[in-house]
């Protein structure tokens, strides 16, 4: 007899993994967007000839010299890059887990189970 508890365990984990994967992908999307914004900002910076740039800190725009703005943007870009990498790694791990669980379940049920997302 199929061990219902074991099957439930794997399915429960599978469901949790799917939702986790979704939220991680959403986060990754946001981080990628932020990265793009930084790229645009640094491009604009190169084009402008003004010496003092209004850089948004919190809710105010502080007058900051160009070089400082450049270094700040670079710093922020690095942080988001690292974040993105971490999220990608997490996503890889979750997808690997999901693939393993799918293998187990397909092995047990063969055709009587449908695990694809519609």
């Amino acid at each position, binding site marked *: 007899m199929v061990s219902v508890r074991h099957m439930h*365990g*794997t399915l429960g984990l599978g469901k949790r993994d799917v939702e986790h994967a979704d939220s991680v992908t959403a986060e990754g999307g946001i981080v990628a967007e932020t990265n793009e914004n930084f790229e645009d900002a640094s491009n604009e910076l190169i084009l402008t000839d003004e010496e003092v740039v209004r850089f948004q800190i919190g809710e105010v725009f502080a007058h900051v010299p160009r070089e400082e703005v450049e270094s700040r943007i670079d710093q922020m870009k690095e942080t988001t890059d690292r974040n993105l990498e971490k999220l990608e790694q997490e996503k890889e791990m979750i997808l690997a887990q999901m693939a393993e669980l799918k293998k187990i379940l397909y092995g047990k*049920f063969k055709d009587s189970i449908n695990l694809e997302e519609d």
Partner: protein
Amino acid sequence: MATPSNIVATERRGIPSASFVEDVQTYLTQLGLDVNSALAFLQESWIEQQKENPKIFAVCLVRNFCRLQQYKMVEMKLLAQQRDLQAKIPDIEKCLDVVATLQAKKGTGEALIADFEMSEGIYSRARIEDADSVCLWLGANVMLEYSCEEATTLLEKNLENAKASLEVLVADLQFLRDQVTITQVTIARVYNWDVHQRRIRQSASPSDSISAAAASDAGLTDLKPPCYTPYLAAQKLA
């Protein structure tokens, strides 16, 4: 990670846990005994119990369904809290940024010129000289003045707390989802078991009219969405 944990907490921060049902027959019998003892019934004969079974089955389904609704309520509450926290954290980080900038400027001795929003679409220029202290909005119409270091400490502590709460919340939500899955499985299995029983009864004694089936049939046809097919299949295979 594929092995399910055998240690299940009886509840977690106020969320009752759903215990996994190993065998539907014993589960229903136990429930029957509970229900009957609560009603101060004396079930002498097994036949009596069989006749009572449809009622017990309905009670069990209703109970589990109510549990499911409760879980949904808790989930909504937790999601709202999570959204709040996720909005608060970037806010605190922005404040920390500003305080850090002020502290940095303090060292150089020059004033900080900033453009800030006075009203929608209207900005004004401000000149901030040596900033020794900042005022922090604590909520409830209260604002306190702090020195830059104190402000940094306070903001960092708030950020830590917010992040920790968010983590706990996420774990709670995961626990909740597991319980929801268990409850849904229980409902499906009890329903299948009843269908199974009914088939046996009909094949054993076709003259027996199962009138109480009306109670269990009504409104339960929506209990078999696609995600339950594995459990139905498992019952067939078992």
